[in-house]
């Protein structure tokens, strides 16, 4: 997750207008989720892989690793769809009889399962594209330009920032503890861990207070106003976006 964040700031598409990337990811996501046939999610997957690896310059191995994260979880849920248990062996494509019960796969279920799997992977790849090419702060700017309620965007921004502040604190404390042999045995590990949590908990309160003070010192009056960075709007990108989306949408319509 931290690596994703690092790539978001250092990929080759970082200078592209965030709205363009956001629209590309979101439209493709919707197209992928509404597709009736396998061909659309497969094309989406290929498209996003090309975008991430070739265009954004993110190592292919890293992308594959990322795709494997949801895969294990997806496989589990998809298996429960593919397999069914019945008292009669009728209609099974592959079956095994266990103590009078038939456990196996029915062909239509298998098709649904595979379809769901590919579709989900396609959808996940769209989100990865956005996450890997666009810094969180830019995504938040796009959301607020799209009139997302202020409370949501402000919370997202603060949470995002403070994930890192607290993570750094936690790593520092943990390092300091283990350099004083805080994690040599199970017992000391538990003690150190509880120490870490209570220290962190105290600091969360202190930090949030301090943050409020410092923001007030700079004239905060209840709304976080910041200037979004200006990116050049690129007409060519919109044309490419349209050129890519139209065939996908057509594919969807024809498949129906």
């Amino acid at each position, binding site marked *: 997750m931290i690596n994703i964040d690092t790539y978001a700031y250092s990929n080759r598409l970082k200078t592209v207008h965030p709205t363009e990337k956001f629209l590309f990811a979101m439209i493709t996501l919707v197209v992928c989720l509404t597709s009736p046939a396998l061909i659309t999610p497969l094309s989406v997957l290929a498209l996003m892989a090309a975008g991430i690896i070739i265009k954004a310059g993110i190592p292919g191995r890293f992308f594959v690793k990322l795709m494997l994260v949801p895969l294990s979880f997806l496989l589990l849920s998809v298996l429960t769809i593919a397999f069914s248990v019945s008292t009669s062996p009728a209609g099974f494509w592959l079956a095994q009889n266990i103590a009078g019960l038939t456990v196996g796969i029915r062909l239509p279920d298998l098709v649904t399962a595979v379809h769901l799997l590919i579709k989900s992977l396609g959808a996940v790849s769209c989100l990865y594209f956005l996450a890997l090419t666009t810094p969180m702060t830019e995504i938040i700017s796009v959301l607020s330009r799209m009139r997302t309620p202020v409370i949501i965007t402000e919370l997202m*921004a603060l949470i995002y920032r403070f994930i890192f502040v607290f993570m750094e604190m936690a790593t520092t404390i943990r390092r300091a503890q283990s350099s004083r042999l805080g994690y040599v045995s199970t017992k000391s590990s538990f003690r150190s861990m509880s120490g870490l949590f209570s220290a962190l908990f105290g600091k969360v309160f202190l930090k949030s207070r301090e943050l409020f003070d410092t923001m007030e010192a700079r004239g905060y009056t209840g709304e976080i106003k910041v200037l979004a960075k200006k990116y050049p709007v690129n007409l060519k990108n919109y044309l490419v976006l349209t050129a890519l989306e139209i065939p996908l949408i057509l594919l969807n319509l024809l498949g129906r």
Partner: protein
Amino acid sequence: MSEVILEAVDIKFSYPDGTNALRKVNLEVKKGEKLAILGSNGAGKSTLFLHFNGIYRPDAGSIKYRGQDISYGKRALIELRKKVGIVFQDPDSQLFSASVWQDISFGPLNLGLGEEVVVDRVKQAMSDTETTDLQDKPTHLLSYGQKKRVSIAGVLAMEPEVIIFDEPTAWLDPRHGREFMELLEKLSQEGKTIIISTHDVDLAYSWSDRIAVMYSGELIASGEPGEVFLQPDIISRADLLLPWLLEMHRELVQKGWLPPSGPLPKTREDLFGSIAAKRERRLSVL
């Protein structure tokens, strides 16, 4: 120069947990001056600063801005904070945004300025603090000194009249420390009033017009740098050291290389210059 811009009058303050952070502090800050506040850890420097733009409210006593008690109403506080800016000690509690650019733009936008003006100010502040190259980096990937510079830029962009820096050079490398001092000089020449807290006696001695020494919630001395450092009881009570320039000067006077009545050296050039002059005189005697 002599007009008092900020003033603390008999300030007392204790934290909710009962810590008596300020016992009785009286301090005048004159317009356009360079004031350094010295004092050991926990002396109350940061706490005092937070009073100067109305973040904390004293239990007793008052803060005056341009001769008037500051009022703690919402409008009045906003006006005060436009005039008095603080760069906090810990940049991690000041940087609220993950984006350098967005964080620096926060203050000036709160002043109600137009977008173009804000863009100009952000750019100027970034070039003054050499953070232009950092603008596309997220704040969590910056080093501590870099974060410190970004947090300084965030306050500079508001262009306050009085700028308070809480230990500004503590985390900076020598080059950025020196450049920061040059920036302070520039700001001072523009007529800003500058207050810093520091543990660096050499820096305080050479840079400031006036020094105030805090000890355990009290202000125990204030005056011109030479004056303050020549009071040995104050220096030892506040756990301070003598600036090396003064120590060297004292040694040279004791050993007879310099006349005891000469002016105190303010910079290393002053001191080295005076030594060279002595040697020439010796040569001419020979």
